[in-house]
């Protein structure tokens, strides 16, 4: 940016300050405020009382153990799928891969509700089949193991994607050389492919771990009834018992979560150091091994897994939504659609939640797009030394658990904004800003990868012909990145629509989101209405994923997360 504009740097003067302001507002300011409150509370001695509470360390232990076992489950599930689908001649790969991605896109509290409907004495499904366990048998999911299992199901796709990216990036020549030297398939797998894919495994495991640490929906529904509190649910319950020390306490607690997440991310960064997935010559063409007689067994195993982790819980969810009351045996005589009538026709809360979630998600998706097109252009074209720092700062809010961001924005906006004196706490705007911050990286990624693929010569030609930045933006840049922008909008929309953690702390009168509403309905004992609403949300998620899938061919690589 030090060079004057005339000499080759084609960016307008305002672009750099604009990008810096955006990053400052969405990342530096809230996180700085959180850190300041945490540190201040520590200095005033407030933290020592909190930190000497054995309950807190019990939560830290529960967070670590659930996340660790969740990570193991995710690695087993996701790793198994990635290896089988990428390296072997399995039929129906595209469909299997798509179905395997679904649990990740379904909101965690819906996953939790669906699984509760599948197991234990409460299962409407098991009751209908006459298989329900006897009275007084515990719900097996209300445990460390249950939470970890669902973490695994929810995050398996993260390991799958990371490992698959690694496998597709394997140098084909190494495999071919080994083959030509007479190595068997098994030897190639053992000595060439698996060692080379270890970083992918490790990175996937680290991302899964971080995602488990920040999960709220699953431990909220499975942990709280069993007295198991992870750090995010502990923050939620501290906030729900609001007292004079609440702000200080929750800032210290979110600091703890942030530290755990950062450790996880540092592990990831370390294992990925020196690897650059962008410059790959012969990717996507890993030698496919023949399973021969084992093929049908592997396929059976894959479909059985999909059935267990996706189909069964969803069938159970539908069964719960059709039961007239809790504990009633579902049969043709007792099936009722009363829950759907209540949720669709009678509850004003549904309309409010749908309006809020849809408008928040649309506003976030389109609003962020405007910002990320400009930021993405800056990041790709600028020669400023700050580019690395800026893209790192843009990533941080997304990498941090939602509850940490929510706390940061509560602290930032709890008091009226200075100078203008307006308070946005308790309004929809605080959720919108938190969403902007949280999903900035999601929106940015497809746009940046589209800009990377653009040939600068087009723009240079336009510039030589005298076109200004606005003209070039409108006539060249925007049309060329439009498909990626479309995908970016759908992705952000999809994720924001299903969000619970950020809004769970920030919602107020009239600003309920779908995630909050499902949680609240379940909490008040209206389980079948919660199930009915969950079914509707799942249908919406699947519809949007199908749209993305249909768009996939026209998009740059890596934009649709489950395609590679």
């Amino acid at each position, binding site marked *: 940016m030090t060079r004057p504009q005339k000499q080759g740097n084609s960016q307008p003067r305002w672009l750099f300050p604009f990008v810096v302001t955006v990053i400052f507002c969405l990342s530096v300011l809230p996180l700085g405020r959180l850190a300041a409150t945490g540190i201040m509370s520590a200095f005033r001695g407030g933290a020592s009382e909190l930190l000497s509470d054995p309950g807190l360390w019990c939560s830290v232990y529960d967070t670590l153990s659930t996340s660790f076992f969740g990570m193991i489950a995710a690695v087993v599930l996701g790793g198994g799928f990635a290896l089988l689908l990428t390296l072997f001649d399995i039929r129906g790969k595209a469909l299997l891969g798509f179905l395997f991605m679904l649990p990740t896109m379904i909101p965690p509290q819906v996953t939790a509700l669906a699984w509760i409907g599948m197991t*234990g*004495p*409460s299962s409407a499904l098991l009751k209908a089949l006459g298989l*329900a366990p006897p*009275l*007084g*048998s515990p*719900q097996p999911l209300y445990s460390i193991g249950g939470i970890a299992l669902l973490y695994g199901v929810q995050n398996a796709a993260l390991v799958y994607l990371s490992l698959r990216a690694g496998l597709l990036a394997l140098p084909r020549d190494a495999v071919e050389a080994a083959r030509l030297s007479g190595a068997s398939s098994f030897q190639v797998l053992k000595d060439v492919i698996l060692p080379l894919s270890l970083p992918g495994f490790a990175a996937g495991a680290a991302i899964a771990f971080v995602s488990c640490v920040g999960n709220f929906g699953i431990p909220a529904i499975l942990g*709280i*009834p*069993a*007295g198991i*509190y992870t750090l995010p649910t*502990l923050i939620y*319950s*501290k906030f*729900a*018992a*609001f007292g004079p020390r*609440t702000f200080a306490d929750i800032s210290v607690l979110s600091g703890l979560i942030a530290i755990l997440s950062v450790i996880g991310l540092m592990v990831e960064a370390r294992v990925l150091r020196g690897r650059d997935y962008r410059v790959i010559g012969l990717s996507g063409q890993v030698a496919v091994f023949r399973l021969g007689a084992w093929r049908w067994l592997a396929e059976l195993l894959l479909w059985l897994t999909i059935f267990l982790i996706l189909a069964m819980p969803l069938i159970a969810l539908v069964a719960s939504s059709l039961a*007239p*009351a*809790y*504990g*009633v045996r579902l049969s043709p005589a007792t099936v009722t659609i009363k829950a759907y009538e209540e949720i669709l026709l*009678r*509850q*004003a*809360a549904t309309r409010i939640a749908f*309006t*809020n979630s849809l*408008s*928040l998600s*649309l*506003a976030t998706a389109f*609003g962020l797009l*405007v910002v990320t097109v400009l930021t993405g252009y800056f990041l790709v074209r600028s020669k400023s030394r700050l580019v690395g720092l800026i893209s790192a700062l843009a990533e941080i809010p997304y990498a941090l658990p939602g509850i940490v961001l929510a706390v940061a924005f509560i602290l930032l*906006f*709890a*008091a*009226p904004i200075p100078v203008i004196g307006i*308070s946005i*706490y308790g*309004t*929809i705007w605080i959720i919108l800003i938190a969403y902007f911050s949280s999903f900035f990286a999601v929106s940015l990624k497809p746009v940046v990868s589209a800009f990377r693929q653009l040939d600068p010569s087009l723009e240079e030609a336009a510039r030589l012909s005298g076109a200004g930045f606005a003209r070039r933006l*409108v006539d060249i840049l*925007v049309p060329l990145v439009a498909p990626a*922008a479309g995908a970016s909008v759908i992705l952000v929309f999809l994720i924001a629509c299903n969000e619970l953690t950020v809004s769970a702390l920030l919602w*107020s*009168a*009239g*600003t*309920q989101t779908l995630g909050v509403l499902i949680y609240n*309905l379940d*909490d*008040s*004992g*209206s*389980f079948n*209405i919660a199930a009915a609403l969950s079914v509707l949300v799942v249908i919406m998620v699947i519809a949007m994923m199908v749209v993305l899938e249909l768009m996939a061919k026209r998009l740059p690589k890596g934009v649709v997360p489950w395609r590679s």
Partner: protein
Amino acid sequence: MKNLLSAFTALVAIGMIVGAAEAADLVLYTSQPNEDAQATVDGFKAANPGLDVQWVRDGTPQIMAKLNAEIQAGNPAADVLLIADTVTLERMKQAGQLMAYKSPEAANYDKALYDADGFYYSTKLITTGIIYNTQAAMKPTSWADLAKPEAKGLVTMPSPLASGAALIHAQTLSGIPSLGWDYYKNLKANGAIAAGGNGAILKSVASGEKAYGFVVDYLPIREKAKGAPVEFVFPKEGVSAVTEPAAILASTKHADNAKKFIDYVLSQKGQEGFLKLGYIPARNGMAVPAGFPARETIKVLPINAPDALKNSEKDVKGFADIFGIKG
């Protein structure tokens, strides 16, 4: 540019929708379950056409937390409260957070059921008794039954951290000489757990995860009518009760509508609405819902309100210590 333009149009349109959503004529914070809250609001709107009412539902402690955080942020959204217990409202009255309003409907109520200065009014009687799954081996008839070996590991109860009624209940039972806090310690030793709100208890017992529980009356009585395998018992020692009072916040921006709301919930029509939902109305001369025994046969255990108010923080902590609850 077309894309950008349409994006901006979308943004502006959304801004307008969102803006409109915030301009309600009355905001109600309540601890009633969603369906009941909606029915109450629908009834009020029918009686006062043209008013746009928004409501927020959560457990009483959570609703109070939200409200306190909003009050501290200088922007409380609620105009009226309809929450579990008078103890909480008494504290708010003393903190100067409530507005006094003398409703003409109060004449039809027992003097014990409303604040003489008009700060809050009881709307119904909600008792806490025992719920059991119809497949359970023992049919409990008293609180003491749940501490017996037959109920080992099969008892669940709401946590005072999540339910206003549960706090009052614990304070009531702990004040009964034959029970006291020792009763809770015995329950804990017998494997009882305490977590979540009343909805969670209903779910747990109806589904058979647990066989017995403490719960507010209307949930099991209503669910039984829908076919759920549960029974509700008024134990022989008596039941605790909350009265789900309504109050107007001092910071209300819609005082007139808030007064109309108070009048409505106390009116014959409003009380009939509660009756239809399965609650015992507080107003004189009303019937009890189907499934309830006659009102005079329900033995309500006494509670010392000023002591309860003074001790609530200590009692919550005591309860949490016995049951190892965090928060």
